[in-house]
């Protein structure tokens, strides 16, 4: 019986690890290809080791501009969507109001609608309203699909917050602004930061919606798409690997930060209890 359970445990974990390998294979290949000198422009096979791609990450001005533009659009869309989404999350968690079901639906639907439909419908609107496509139509589109994710992320953090901390602050004669500034905001901040990071990564990587609303403006995914037919420069894999490493570092740092904060939270009461003891 024990042996069988042991085998059953290993069997599941074995399959799980194989599936994880399938999920990680492309990243390994992308990292490997970032050190590749391809034999020809249209070849995607590993040919020869080189560091050139990393020392010269931008083979053309077009690619450099595309990466910079994606970062710009990502930052602007992140700021706008984080502000709008955070305000909505506060209203949803902290306030009663009429039409809650309608607002919830308005926030949920963009996450359930195929990107393709959001992209084409926004294009139909911009064309009908004769708004020229370009940088700002991309920003508008990105804010639109990021807002819902921000609301959901911040809402989760707000809902899990202990209201008594704010009540305690008010009892200690903090006014509403002071309570918000000194208690509420610091407690919600990790949720807001997580939402902003999510919004940036969604914006930076979006292709389908951008494709319909970019006109002649080229973002990094648009550049990769356009180059796919003509042959992808190996430097694209450098950007892909760099994105991966940066994202991993952010996740690692935040989990370390979280662990430290938890340890500090555990230590604080101990210190408080310990203090009078050492005094007496």
């Amino acid at each position: 019986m024990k042996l069988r359970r042991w085998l059953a445990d290993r069997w599941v974990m074995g399959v799980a690890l194989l599936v994880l390998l399938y999920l990680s294979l492309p990243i390994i290949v992308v990292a490997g290809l970032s050190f590749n000198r391809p034999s020809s422009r249209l070849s995607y096979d590993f040919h020869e080791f080189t560091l050139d791609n990393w020392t010269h990450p931008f083979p053309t001005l077009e690619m450099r501009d595309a990466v910079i533009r994606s970062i710009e659009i990502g930052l602007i869309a992140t700021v706008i969507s984080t502000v709008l989404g955070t305000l909505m999350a506060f209203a949803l968690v902290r306030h009663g109001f009429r039409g809650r079901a309608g607002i919830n639906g308005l926030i949920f639907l963009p996450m359930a609608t195929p990107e393709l439909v959001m992209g084409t419908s926004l294009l139909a609107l911009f064309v009908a309203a004769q708004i020229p496509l370009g940088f700002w139509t991309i920003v508008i589109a990105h804010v639109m699909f990021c807002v819902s994710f921000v609301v959901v992320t911040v809402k989760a953090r707000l809902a899990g917050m202990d209201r008594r901390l704010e009540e305690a602050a008010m009892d200690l004669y903090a006014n509403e602004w002071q309570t918000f500034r000194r208690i509420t905001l610091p407690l919600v901040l990790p949720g807001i930061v997580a939402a902003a990071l999510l919004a940036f990564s969604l914006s930076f990587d979006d292709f389908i919606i951008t494709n319909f609303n970019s006109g002649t403006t080229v973002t990094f995914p648009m550049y990769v798409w356009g180059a796919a037919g003509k042959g992808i420069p190996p430097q694209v894999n450098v950007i892909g690997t760099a994105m991966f490493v940066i994202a991993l570092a952010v996740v690692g740092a935040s989990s370390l930060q979280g662990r430290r904060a938890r340890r500090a939270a555990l230590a604080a009461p101990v210190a408080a209890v310990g203090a009078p003891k050492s005094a007496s």
Partner: protein
Amino acid sequence: MTALAHVSTPAGEPAAPPTPRRGRHRLLPYLLLLPGAAWLLVFFALPLLQLAAASLYDPSGSLATGYAMTWAFGNYPAALEQYWPQLARSFGYSAIALVLALLMGYPLAYGIAQKAGRWKNLLLVAVVAPMFTSFLVRTLAWKTILSDNGWVVGLLRDVHLLGPDGRLLATPFAVILGLTYNFLPFLVLPLYASLERLDPRLLEAASDLYASPLRAFQKVTLPLSMPGVIAGTLLFFIPATGDYINAELLGTPNEYMIGNVIDSAFLVRLDYPQGAALSFLLMAAILAIVFGYLRKAGTEEVL
């Protein structure tokens, strides 16, 4: 009594609010909601109406001369007649990919939730790690993995699973593999969330009552993880059906899905009425399947 009430509530002020704070901030929630809701109304809801209108434009118009609104409902049957193979292929490919993803994702989610111990968080990061890099770049990586000179094709040819000229790239297999890969994390995460809450003592109880592991899985694990299965299925199926990146990069026009057709209708052929009609057909078909599925699965609370 009424007169008295009138007297005690001076002009405009509502009768004693439940708490003074609430009273002063009656408008606050609406102000907080206004910018975000307005953005979503103008740039999400309104465009859907515009798309519906565009799908009924006179099909003989053009972007240059402008479209006339003629309530041309005939655009729908016309588009369906011309492109039903691509529409059917979209649902066929994503359905096969969904089955593969469930077969792979369930053991993965179960392993992480129940067996991984202190490695749990690390393995979870590994599940979402593919999403840390660009969707297009990692899909292109499959081009390298499945290439005719690659080791995968070489191995399959050596063991005669593939003929000497057989290939993987530019086949339905490659497209389905890409779809499965790209959307698998969306299926695994909600599945993990529901399996993580599964109390292992329930399985012990089942085994104490002489249930075989298979039967315990059928009767305990699977039913309790159904909310996760349903949420994961929807999160996988909706984007996979609308995707056309995998078909474009890993397939050929023979593998084109409805997204490829819509993309070319709007951006190459500039046939807005047809593109709009196809977009709506796609959305209607997805909604019909989602609601049919939810009704059958019997859990309305997921939405």
